[in-house]
């Protein structure tokens, strides 16, 4: 993946990363109509399309930060695939009977498919981390929050009244515990490509 050339549409990813209103606006103007159309033709409506698009942009934003997302295909194809997947998943989950899904053949190229697949996995992984974090003990939650907010471990140690060495050790053990919980989750197995 790292060998591939970065597509010029990477500017959309950078724009989202920086919360640039111009970029967000132009994503809506250029790419939303196709998604709205698709959802409307497949048992949805405008409100649903609004949610799907918003969630998809949020996903891309998170991955731009967490995974340093690099676009190797046109944004259009990537964005549409992600929205489409999200919508089909929603239909599956909500168990709407009598749904006819117009699955068209994809001609977006392998790069887009591959990247969209990877993004979907990463999104599920993000959700799994989120769920497991909530399961951690309060002491670990507090320490991790302080660690990543304050940055300097000396200050963290001081703020919770422990020694520097203890705070550091505890931090790695808490992350370790989170790692273990994630790995033990039944969902974890589905997250490996």
């Amino acid at each position, binding site marked *: 993946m790292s060998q591939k050339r970065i597509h010029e549409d990477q500017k959309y990813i950078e724009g989202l990363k920086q919360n640039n209103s*111009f970029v967000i606006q132009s994503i809506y103007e250029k790419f939303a109509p196709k998604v709205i159309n698709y959802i409307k033709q497949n048992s949805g409506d405008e409100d649903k399309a*609004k949610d799907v698009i918003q969630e998809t942009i949020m996903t891309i934003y998170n991955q731009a930060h967490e995974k340093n997302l690099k676009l190797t295909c046109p944004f259009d194809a990537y964005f549409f695939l992600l929205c489409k997947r999200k919508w089909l998943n929603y239909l599956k989950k909500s168990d709407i009977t009598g749904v006819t899904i117009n699955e068209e053949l994809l001609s977006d190229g392998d790069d887009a498919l591959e990247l969209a697949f990877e993004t979907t996995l990463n999104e599920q992984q993000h959700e799994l981390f989120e769920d497991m974090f909530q399961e951690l003990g309060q002491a670990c939650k507090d320490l991790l929050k302080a*660690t*990543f907010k304050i940055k300097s471990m000396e200050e963290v140690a001081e703020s919770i009244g422990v020694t520097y060495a203890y705070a*550091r050790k505890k931090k790695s053990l808490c992350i*370790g515990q989170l790692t273990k919980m994630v790995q033990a989750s039944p969902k974890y197995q589905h997250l490996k490509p």
Partner: protein
Amino acid sequence: MQEKDFILFDDYLSGSLDAESIQAFENRLKADADFNLAFNDYQQAEAFLEHKFKNEEQNQRFKENLERISSGYFKKEVSGKAKVRRINPWYYSVAAGVILLFGVVIAQQFSSPAYDDFANYGTISLTVRGSENDLQNNAEKAFNNKDYKDAEKYLTQLLQKDQGNLELQLYKAVSLVELNNYEEADVLYQNVIQSPSVYSNKAKWYLALSKLKQKEKSESITVLKSIPEDADDFESAQKLLKKLE
């Protein structure tokens, strides 16, 4: 994995191992698949936490901005659709006549394009949760209400605290153009244009509009020609260019 493994991960990542231990660690990564997987997941957990907490306020701001733009977009979509009504065929001939008449009038007007036809700066959003709320709020409100005198004043105050902020510089330049203070505006535009930022192309388009307002046709053309094809305003720029040339 055991506790000591996680402590080892942290030592490795924070660079507190000596050369020999680093070598041993990396060898183990190659030889022990479980260890490798755990280390990988440990790093992902760290990236997740970093984004979640370090960027907490930034993430919240993004969410709010996204919500605002999304609602604005869909409102437009809905109201655009609502206007579609069935028209009595008889009206078409009347409409055609009216359009023809308008066409003549517009064609005359557009022979020299007016600044007001192209200057559409939209609305801006600066509001951030936190202490500077008031000033940002005021600047945003003034700008969006087209009260450029106040907008310029507030943006200047904001820039005093955050000199390098290109987004603020861009909005201030727009306000200055509206106040006919071109010289100062052009300096700001040039500054933004020269930055490797996402605002660079926007600034080119606005600078071209500023030149248009100053009736400096050839300068406007030069700037318009420098707007690349992938810029958001490329089409508008081409439209204006056609009318100017």
